């Protein structure tokens, strides 16, 4: 394995009586894209804040790019970029001014940042927009500008907290594409997301957090192979109740959620044969994915 970019050991953090991070361990290798997944309130954002040294852990150790955090968090943050969950761009500034002012927080001279602006904007799909005012930008453009802003210091590691929430497919794909390019340049990425498809596409490894602990850790394909049968059928329709009794014979595991029956199987053929030609049932047949793993491990109850 490569050198370690980020390492957390036995990390704990409580707010009042609630232990939000309850003893987690993980390490991220240089060049990896590491996903932190979990339902709302699982401790993802708190974990990121701990890694950045923005809040002190109750117990445990963090090393970010070799620096102990929070003791030398400032020095570590100088080599890190952050795309926060919520828009924090300066609405009073133009696109270019946002980058220049942010660069000053890293002690980068204005002249240096100005010379890098065309490249940063081209990378973020904002070429020619240097003088655009913030209120004229769409949500997707603001997100891309936040990505550009996180790169002003040419960071070795990027933290991205739900980078594509609220974006349309075009903008989402552009962010994904750029993340891949950053990975090719050897940047390490630590990403939180609710979108399992996103994690499956981008992440070399993911950690699934629930109630402050890591309940699964591995590559998306390994997690799917380990936790879920490879094929899934989703069946719904007016004939479902009548059919359910017979389905059990062919599906080793099934889950009845509201109006839908999820059947998980190694070999879906017997089930498919039975369902073929039934007008009162609609069937979707698909390979198992990370979302199935996520829902199996964290449950289907709402978390807010």
């Amino acid at each position, binding site marked *: 394995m490569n050198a370690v970019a980020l390492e957390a050991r036995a990390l704990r953090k409580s*707010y009042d009586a609630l232990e939000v991070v309850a003893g987690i361990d993980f390490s991220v290798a240089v060049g990896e894209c590491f996903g932190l997944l979990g339902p709302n309130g699982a401790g993802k954002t708190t974990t990121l804040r701990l890694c*950045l*040294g*923005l*809040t*002190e852990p109750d117990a445990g150790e963090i090393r970010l790019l070799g620096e102990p955090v*929070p003791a030398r*968090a*400032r*020095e570590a*943050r*100088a080599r890190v970029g*952050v795309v*926060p969950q*919520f*828009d*924090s*761009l*300066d*609405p*009073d*500034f133009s696109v270019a*001014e946002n980058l220049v*002012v*942010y660069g*000053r*927080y*890293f*002690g980068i001279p204005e002249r240096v940042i100005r010379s890098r602006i065309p490249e940063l904007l081209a990378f973020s799909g904002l070429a020619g927009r240097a003088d655009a005012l913030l209120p004229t930008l769409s949500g997707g453009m603001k997100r891309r500008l936040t990505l550009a*802003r996180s790169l002003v*210091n040419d960071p070795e590691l990027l933290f991205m907290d739900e980078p594509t929430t609220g974006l349309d497919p075009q903008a989402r794909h552009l962010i994904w594409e750029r993340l891949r390019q950053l990975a090719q340049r050897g940047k390490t990425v630590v990403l939180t997301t609710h979108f399992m498809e996103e994690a499956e596409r981008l992440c070399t490894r993911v950690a699934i957090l629930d109630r402050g602990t890591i309940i699964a850790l591995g590559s998306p394909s390994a997690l799917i192979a380990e936790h879920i049968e490879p094929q899934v059928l989703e069946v719904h329709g007016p004939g479902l109740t009548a059919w359910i009794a017979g389905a059990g014979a062919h599906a080793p595991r099934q889950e009845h959620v509201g109006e839908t029956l999820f059947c998980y199987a190694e070999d879906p053929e017997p089930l498919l044969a039975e369902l073929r030609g039934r007008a009162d049932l609609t069937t979707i047949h698909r390979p198992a994915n990370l979302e199935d793993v996520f829902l199996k491990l964290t449950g289907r109850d709402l978390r807010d």
Partner: protein
Amino acid sequence: MAPLFAPPTLSLRLFAVWGRNWLVWRKLALPSLLANLADPLIVLFGLGYGLGAVLGEMDGMSYFAFLGAGFVCSAAMYAATFESLYSAFSRMHVQRTWEAIVNAPMTLDDVIAGEWAWAATKAVAAGICVLAVVAAFGFVRSPAALAALPVIVLLGLAFAALGLAINALATGYDFFSYYMTVVLTPMLMLSGVFFPVEQLPSGVQVAATLLPLYHGVSIMRPLLSGELAPGWFGHLAVIGAYAMVAFYIAVVLTRRRLLR
């Protein structure tokens, strides 16, 4: 990361925060400066000349000069307060500007220090504008009035720090009404801006000596006539103590709010 009650660490990095606010203000500088000039111009003209004609002299000077000296101080107070309450709250809470800054290699102490210096800068701009109006009407008697500048700076730092402490407790913009109504407006009335403090009942006079604005006015009024107030050092010390203690409290309260 600093422990909650650790003394604030001041670093030159605060100027990156100051510079960010300066760059925003520069875009709106003209209307802002005009308001800083026009407000005292209108009020001083109306009260100084209008009311002054009825009142005659006050404390051995024209009412215009009397009021002018008070307004230099109250303008600094209000400018620092508005910046450290409403504007700082926008940056801290609404725009998440502070959150973005501490993701860079900046500390929350840097941010608060930068905001402190910035709000004091706004106070100095407002104070100088009133001073210019008073001088334009011929009521600044002496070049020694230049010594008013450090007093305005100190007042700005004191009220900026108080505002930042309140800001750290705020739940929304409405929260600031309490501070404005319960603290600042009585302070404006009790500090000798409009009439000599000696007019107040003796108990209230004693209470007035606890107020930073009172000490600002006490030193400013003689200064604009070219005299150094007796006990000037004590007045400055009180304002300075307000600035230091309130800044420490502001830092602790903001750390408690944002570094949890």
